[in-house]
């Protein structure tokens, strides 16, 4: 694809939507609904500078650590649980139990067990972002191709080698689907984790704005979240293209025709 086309794809729909929003908000005076231009100005004045260093960067740091562990643990546990039936039977109800507990309820408990610190916030991020990776990995492991699986067994490829050379690559497409979900859920939980027992951070700041009726600032915070999400997605896409180049080659035989 030519760079020009790429740019058109990237900005096309967003520009269209912003134009629509601009048209719709033209005559509106609603206090809670921002206008595009006002929002853009607020975005600039609110987030560039000191606040970026004090609130956004530490949040991003926690997010990165949380995602790292969520993805790592999700894959490791997923491989374990997916390939061991008794473990799956043992843990599935429990995992479903924890998955159903809303983070705002979980936070006090984590505070109790871990304390009011960065580890707690990271734990909140892990507690929510792990599920898509874990679930997708488990399902992927369960669905590996039977002929490939037999090939491995007949060549005595077992244990760690089997995971490394067979299961992991085979499940990577599913894992990537999970990771992509985890990125945005992690971001959401970064906000939620800062809504409790916090005094700084992106999420904390957005909630402050919301409580203090700084509505344009609040929306600008939400836009920042969206932009961070977009940034994560772009990084992710880059990594995925690399990790799954064989998969895209395999699938695009027809897609390109």
């Amino acid at each position, binding site marked *: 694809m030519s760079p020009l086309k790429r740019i058109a794809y990237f900005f096309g729909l967003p520009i269209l939507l912003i134009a629509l929003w601009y048209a719709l908000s033209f005559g509106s005076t609603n206090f809670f609904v921002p206008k595009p231009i006002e929002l853009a100005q607020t975005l600039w004045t609110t987030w560039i500078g000191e606040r970026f260093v004090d609130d956004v960067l530490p949040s991003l740091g926690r997010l990165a650590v949380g995602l790292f562990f969520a993805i790592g643990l999700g894959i490791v546990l997923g491989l374990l649980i997916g390939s061991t039936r008794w473990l799956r039977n043992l843990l599935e*109800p429990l995992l479903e139990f924890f998955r159903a507990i809303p983070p705002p*309820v979980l936070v006090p408990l984590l505070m109790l067990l871990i304390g009011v610190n960065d580890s707690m916030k990271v734990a909140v991020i892990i507690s929510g972002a792990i599920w898509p990776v874990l679930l997708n990995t488990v399902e992927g492991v369960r669905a590996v191709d039977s002929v490939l699986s037999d090939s491995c067994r007949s060549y005595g490829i077992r244990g760690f080698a089997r995971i490394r050379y067979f299961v992991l690559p085979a499940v990577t497409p599913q894992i990537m689907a999970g990771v992509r979900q985890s990125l945005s859920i992690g971001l959401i939980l970064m906000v939620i984790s800062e809504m409790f027992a916090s005094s700084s951070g992106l999420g904390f700041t957005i909630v402050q704005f919301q409580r203090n009726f700084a509505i344009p600032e609040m929306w600008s915070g939400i836009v920042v979240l969206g932009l961070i999400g977009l940034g994560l997605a772009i990084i992710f896409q880059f990594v995925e293209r690399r990790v799954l180049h064989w998969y895209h080659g395999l699938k695009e035989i027809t897609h390109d025709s």
Partner: protein
Amino acid sequence: MRNQRSAAAGPKAKALGLGIGGIILFFLIWEATPRLGLVSDRYLPPASEVLGRLGQYLTEAAFWKDVADTMTSWALGLVIATVAAIVVGLIIGSSRFLRRATHTTIEFLRPIPSVALIPLAVLIFGTSIESTLLLVVYASFWQVLLQLLYGIADVDAVANDTAKSYGLGPLARVRYVIWPTALPYLMTGLRLAAAVALILAITAELIIGTPGLGKQIALTQSGGAISSMYALVLATGMIGVLINLGARIIEKRVLSWHPSVRGEVVL
């Protein structure tokens, strides 16, 4: 694989037994934590006390009314989100152009936390159930959509070529090839979304104050009724387990041909 076969004698009973074993283990650890003084029982009451309180709740009509309220938002929200995601997903997923053109927008909107939309929800719908629904739908929509898009990308080239060569048009291919291929992904998406929908239903009730389990949790929290609060959290978790059980049953039926399901029967 070997142990899968040895489990063949009453595998269902065995699976159930293991699952229950896991739960019992969890409760034992929970019971021990405050009893051994690892955490003060004023902040984390022992499991037995919470279970007792839950037992009491189960006999109260008001509790069941709350459960019904929460489950209504959950079910409605999930259905709306799923249907919308399937329609949007199939449209976007089967066109390369749309896939590319919507990418930025989707990735921008997806990480916006539902909870940040609460003012907007209240602004539009007040504190009625629609506010909760908006949050539930927004959060679970993306889960289903994304899984579906990945599923559609996983369509086998040879299978798709076969369908094309037999003159199956785009719609027929969606129905006979793309849909079945994406179904396993969709089921995972649904299970993710079901949990997220429950979480958001409760969270919205908790924060906005629409009636349901979430509101009750908030009340017990602010009222300092700590074992009641944990009893309600427990109830929430149990609902999650039941939902997953239901999803598994549906999955077994819908995906009987899929390696993840058939593998356990044949091998």
